[in-house]
C-alpha cells in the first residue's frame, strides 16, 4: 500500500506497519519520542555507527547558509543541525529549532545551552503541517529524520515551501531505499532483528525502535519524495544517495 494514496486515506494512515486513525498518529509518534528523548543521541550513534553525524554534516554543507540568514530546523530533535547553523548565521542571523515533541525540544534546548548557544536561536513547538510562521520568512529550511513521522507529508512540504523565501532552499534528510539488493537484505536483517534489541538494551524500549524500522520502510522512496517536493512547489529538486541509499538528501529551491 502506498503511503501517498492508501484507500481510506482520509481516515487512516500508517504508523509503522499498523493502520491507525489519522488523528491518532501524531500522539503515537509523540509517545515514541517521549520515550526515547533522553537517550536519543546515544541511540543514534549506536544505530548508525556514528555515520548520522556525517549525513548531517553533508546537509549543512549543501545548505549554503551564510551569516545573517534565517534558518528553520524542523524536527530538530536534539539540535545537531541547529548548533552548527547558529554559528554559521552569526549574531545577525537567527535559527529556529522546531519540533512537535516537547521532550525532544527540551533535550535539544538543554544541549544547545550547554554548548554556549543562546542569542540567535529560538525554540518553537510546532507541527510541520501547519508551520506558525509568515510566508517567505526563511532562507533555508531543513528537516532531518523527521518527515517520515509527519502524518500528512504533502501538507508539511507545502507549509515549508510557503515559509521559505524566494531563492531559499529546503533540505530533507531522511531514510530511503538502498540501491543495492544485497545491502537492502543486510539492512533489513539489521533493522528488524538487531535494532529492536539494541533499543531494548540501551533505551529500555524495543517497540519504539521497531516502529523506527517499520516507518522507514513505509516512507516514500527517492523518486517519490522528489515528485512530492516538486508538487509542493519546489523547483530544481535533486537528491543524493548516502551510504548506498540507506539515507537520501533531497534539496529543492523556491523560485
Amino acid at each position, binding site marked *: 500500500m502506498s503511503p501517498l494514496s492508501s484507500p481510506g486515506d482520509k481516515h487512516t494512515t500508517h504508523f509503522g506497519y499498523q493502520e491507525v486513525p489519522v488523528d491518532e498518529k501524531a500522539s503515537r509518534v509523540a509517545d515514541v519520542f517521549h520515550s526515547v528523548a533522553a537517550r536519543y543521541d546515544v541511540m543514534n550513534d549506536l544505530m548508525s555507527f556514528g*555515520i548520522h553525524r556525517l549525513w548531517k*554534516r*553533508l546537509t549543512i*554543507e549543501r545548505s549554503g547558509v*551564510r551569516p545573517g540568514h534565517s534558518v528553520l530546523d524542523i524536527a530538530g530533535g536534539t539540535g545537531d543541525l541547529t548548533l552548527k547553523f547558529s*554559528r554559521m548565521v552569526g*549574531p545577525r542571523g537567527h535559527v529556529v529549532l522546531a519540533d512537535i515533541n516537547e521532550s525532544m525540544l527540551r533535550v535539544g534546548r538543554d544541549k544547545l545551552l550547554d*554548548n554556549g548557544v543562546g542569542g540567535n536561536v529560538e525554540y518553537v513547538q510546532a507541527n510541520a503541517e501547519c508551520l506558525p510562521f509568515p510566508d517567505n520568512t526563511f532562507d533555508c529550511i531543513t528537516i532531518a529524520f523527521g518527515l517520515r513521522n509527519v502524518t500528512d507529508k504533502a501538507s508539511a512540504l507545502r507549509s515549508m515551501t510557503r515559509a521559505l523565501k524566494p531563492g531559499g532552499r529546503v533540505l530533507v534528510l531522511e531514510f530511503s531505499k538502498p540501491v543495492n539488493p544485497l545491502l537492502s537484505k543486510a539492512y533489513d536483517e539489521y533493522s528488524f532483528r538487531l535494532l529492536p534489541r539494541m533499543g531494548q538494551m540501551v533505551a529500555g524500549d524495543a517497540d519504539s525502535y521497531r516502529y523506527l524500522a517499520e516507518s522507514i520502510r513505509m516512507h516514500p522512496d527517492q523518486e517519490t519524495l522528489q515528485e512530492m517536493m516538486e508538487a509542493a512547489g519546489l523547483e530544481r529538486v535533486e537528491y543524493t544517495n548516502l551510504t548506498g541509499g540507506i539515507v537520501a538528501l533531497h534539496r529543492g529551491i523556491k523560485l
Partner: protein
Amino acid sequence: MTLTPTLLLAGIERTLNALLARDPAAPARLARLSGNRVLLRLARPELSLAIHFHPAGLDLLRPQEDTDDAFDAVVELNAETLGELLGDESIERLMFQGKLSVRGHVHLLEATRDLLLDLDLDWEGELARWLGDVPAHSLAEGLRRATRWGRRAHGEMRSDIAEYVFEEAKLLPGKHQLENLRDHLTELEMTTDRLEARLARLRRQLQREASPR
C-alpha cells in the same frame, strides 16, 4: 564515496578543536577571529575548503556553490605554497612571488596561521587532571629531561659520525674539499672547451690550405 571527504574533514576539525581547547591562549585568539569565514582554494590538487571561526574553535566545510563574496577572505594557492605557509614562510614574500593570492582581509590569513602554528598545549595541566598535580609534574619533568637528553645525544652522535667519516677514516670528502674539487673540475672543463675550440680552428685552417685553389 560522497562521505569520504566529509569524514576526513570531520576528523581534522575534531582534532584541531581538541588541540585548540587545550591551548590557554586560544580563546583570546579565537575571539578575535570569531564570526569570520575564510575560503581556502587549492589549485593543485583542486580543492576548496571553508573555515568558519567561532568562539569554541573552527568549522571546516566543503563550500558548495558559494561565491567569493560570502567570505571575509579568499586565499588561492597550491599545495607546495601551503607547505611553505605552514613552514612559517613570510606571507608578503609568497604574495610578491605570485605563489599566493589573497582577496579580502589579508590579516585573517596571518591570524589563522598564528592560531594553528602557535598552539601551546598545556599537556602537564591535562595530565594533572587525570593523575594529580605531583605525579603529573614528575612525569612531565621526566619527559622533558628525556627529550633534552635525546636532543643532546642526537647532536653528539651526528658530530661524532661526521668526524669519523670525514676526518679519521676519510671515507668521504669534507665540505671544503668538495668545493675545491668542484672548482678544479670547473677549471678543467673550461680549459678542455678552449682546447677543443683551438683544435677545431686548426682543423679548419688545415682543410683550407689542403684544398686546391
